[in-house]
């Protein structure tokens, strides 16, 4: 495949990397504010409540969605053995996407928000996002429909499903039949959490798992352990995941039956997770030497891609086992509303899916551009991020348990706030490491690209 037919994927990967830089920079400011609340205080756009949605929007709809769709632009034509339906439409989608993110950041900093978590953006931006999503979905679906390869590899199943699910989830979740973008009363929260959880379950998960299923056999040079098992995981994901949203409202002012349904579905999520996990580790079996030492068999990019992929698999298992556990009524009072959940969310989005995203870039970008990944910054990125993330998860998990048990014991609220300071300080140090690792990553990517142009 010539260079031209890869342009959109390349643009998306590069955009994703740049937006990641912005997202983590904002994250660092937020982490500082938890320890030093007077830091950058007194400025409206830099106030915590304005910056927080910027961090999340850029990380979720910038970096993560872009790298995953970039991977879809990369893999779908290869798995279908045809050219992407329209490279021009794909390039248009990338341009619109970057425009969308710029406008999203500006409006959020200006305080324009619909007041719903993950669904903050004002109506015109929702419409813009849905339009570019439709563009992406149309292009990829058309490509799959005219494929020359008879077999539909499981990656395509997952991508297909994500492209069907996300427009529905986004439309309903953002209550797009009214420009106000919200319902009245507690149903607003129910819809909000149907949406909030399903951008994870029906967008990041299928795109991420699909990408992992593509990369794993390539990197360990061995076919997938079981196609049938992967399809079991696929259908159980579709069966259970869309039901779990209301587990964010347990003990809250919503019908108890709705909470129970969500809890049962959350526990059932163990099934698809196990299917993915068994498949994942069985495929790696016998190839561990590729991770340690015998790297001469893999290029520098592939070698670090494999590291990210495998460790991402560990984070994936951890976060997916936390999910059903947290949803239990016995556990909820100790973890809900606390920093435990912040750790959990980062384990999923930064641990599992972003690690797989880094694997995608280290694997695909050299193949798209002919760039060589230089091993030293790539390894520094991997190890520094891993240490930082571990510290981050550990400190916030402990902080969350302290909050939950102190509240249970009736400790005055402000005393609990004050007792978290050491843990929030460890989180800050961890955040500095993670942000530094991302800057190294950006340096690695852009310096390798500069090498190509020369």
């Amino acid at each position, binding site marked *: 495949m010539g260079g031209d037919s890869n342009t959109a994927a390349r643009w998306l990967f590069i955009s994703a990397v740049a937006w990641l830089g912005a997202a983590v920079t904002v994250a660092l400011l937020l982490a500082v504010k*938890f320890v030093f*609340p007077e830091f950058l*205080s007194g400025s*409206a756009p830099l*106030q*915590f*409540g*304005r910056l*927080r*949605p910027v961090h999340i929007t850029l990380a979720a709809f910038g970096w993560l969605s872009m790298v995953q769709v970039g991977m879809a632009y990369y893999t779908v034509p290869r798995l279908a053995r045809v050219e992407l339906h329209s490279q021009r439409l794909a390039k248009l989608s990338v341009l619109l996407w970057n425009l969308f993110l710029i406008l999203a950041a500006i409006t959020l900093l200006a*305080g324009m*928000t619909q*007041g719903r*978590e993950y669904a903050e953006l004002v109506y015109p931006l929702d419409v813009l996002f849905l339009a570019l999503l439709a563009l992406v979905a149309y292009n990829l679906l058309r490509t799959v429909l005219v*494929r020359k390869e008879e077999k*539909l590899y499981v990656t*395509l199943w997952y991508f*297909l*499903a994500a492209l*069907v*699910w996300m427009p529905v989830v986004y439309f*309903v979740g953002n209550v797009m039949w009214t420009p*106000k973008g*919200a*319902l*009245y*009363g*507690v*149903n*607003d*929260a*129910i*819809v*909000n959490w149907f949406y909030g959880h399903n951008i994870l379950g029906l967008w990041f998960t299928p795109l991420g798992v699909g990408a992992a299923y593509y990369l794993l056999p390539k990197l360990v040079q061995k076919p997938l352990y079981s196609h049938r098992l992967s399809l079991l995981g696929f259908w159980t994901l*579709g069966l259970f995941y*869309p*039901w779990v949203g*209301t587990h*964010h409202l*347990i*003990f*809250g*002012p*919503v*019908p108890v039956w*709705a909470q129970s*349904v*969500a809890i049962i579905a959350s526990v059932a999520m163990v099934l698809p997770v196990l299917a993915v996990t068994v498949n994942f580790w069985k495929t790696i079996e016998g190839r561990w030497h590729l991770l340690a030492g015998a790297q001469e068999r893999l290029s520098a990019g592939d070698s670090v891609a494999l590291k990210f992929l495998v460790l991402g698999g560990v984070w994936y298992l951890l976060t997916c086992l936390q999910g059903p556990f947290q949803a239990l009524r016995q556990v909820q*009072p100790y973890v809900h*509303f*606390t920093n435990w*959940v*912040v750790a959990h969310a980062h384990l999923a989005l930064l641990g599992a899916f972003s690690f797989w995203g880094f694997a995608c870039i280290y694997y695909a970008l050299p193949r798209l551009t002919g760039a060589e990944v230089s091993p030293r910054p790539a390894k520094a990125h991997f190890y520094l991020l891993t240490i930082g993330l571990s510290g981050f998860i550990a400190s916030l998990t402990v902080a969350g348990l302290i909050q939950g048990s102190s*509240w249970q014991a*009736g400790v*005055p*609220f*402000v005393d609990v*706030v*004050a007792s978290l300071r050491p843990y929030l300080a460890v989180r800050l140090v961890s955040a500095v490491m993670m942000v530094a690792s991302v800057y190294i990553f950006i340096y690695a990517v852009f310096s390798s690209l500069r090498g190509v142009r020369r």
Partner: protein
Amino acid sequence: MRALTIAAGVAALVGVALLVTVFLPMGDSSLYEPSPELKPLNELQERGRQIYIREGCWYCHTQQVRNLSMDVQYYGRVSEPGEYAYLSPVLLGTERTGPDLARVGGVYSDDWHLAHFINPRYTVPRSIMPSFSYLSQEELEALIAYVQSLGGAEAERRAEMQRRMKRAMLEAQRLGREEEMMQAMVPASYRSLENPLAGSAEAVLLGRKLFAENCSGCHGSGGGGDGPAAAYLAPKPANFTSAEFMSTASDGRLYYSILRGVPGTAMHPFGAKLTEREVWSLIAYLRTLEE
């Protein structure tokens, strides 16, 4: 064809889930039945709510008292669906970096909120809440009106009582009859209490620490009634360095004021936040401040 079948299959799966988990509750009209305590927001309060949304207060504060004893002990009665009937977006929240606000209306006086929004560390020295000093006077007023409305009719009654007491306090101050009024507010059973920890060096040390952590923003780090919050408060915080004040205020009266607060002023009750021993330690410390 195969691809289209898969697409249809997954669409059906999400459709069924949507139907049951989202559209079924939407059709349940009992979830929209306004509860009798729910009061529609007036124009100023609604404006305050928009500022609450704009500034992202809801990322740090929930507005739902869950059906759990731990929530009830901090925040009061369990929240019911009917209390949210008029609200869109609903702002239930997901994180308690700060306390739940569902029933915070009238718990504090208006001027407490003003000083707190200008800089939360003025009233709560260990707070990590952001400062909202960049809001205009008019925006702050709206935000306070909104926060004071949280908790429905009950909250509005509390907030109204705070305002009435404030007017009475200021009027008494103007007439030079504040002392009389304060004395009358302290029940006889408290008036004669004596500090069991009086003179204990250990108590003074503990009191000094607690004072810095809880009281210094209003009463000043030296207890002179001149903390950074004082500029925003009326009536002003008590001056513990004043011999005149300290000689008229008995231990029992100080104890009662700290425990129950002084309604209508920024001096809010510390009864739920400090133990009996801690309050007496604070009083032992206050007694060392007189100049």
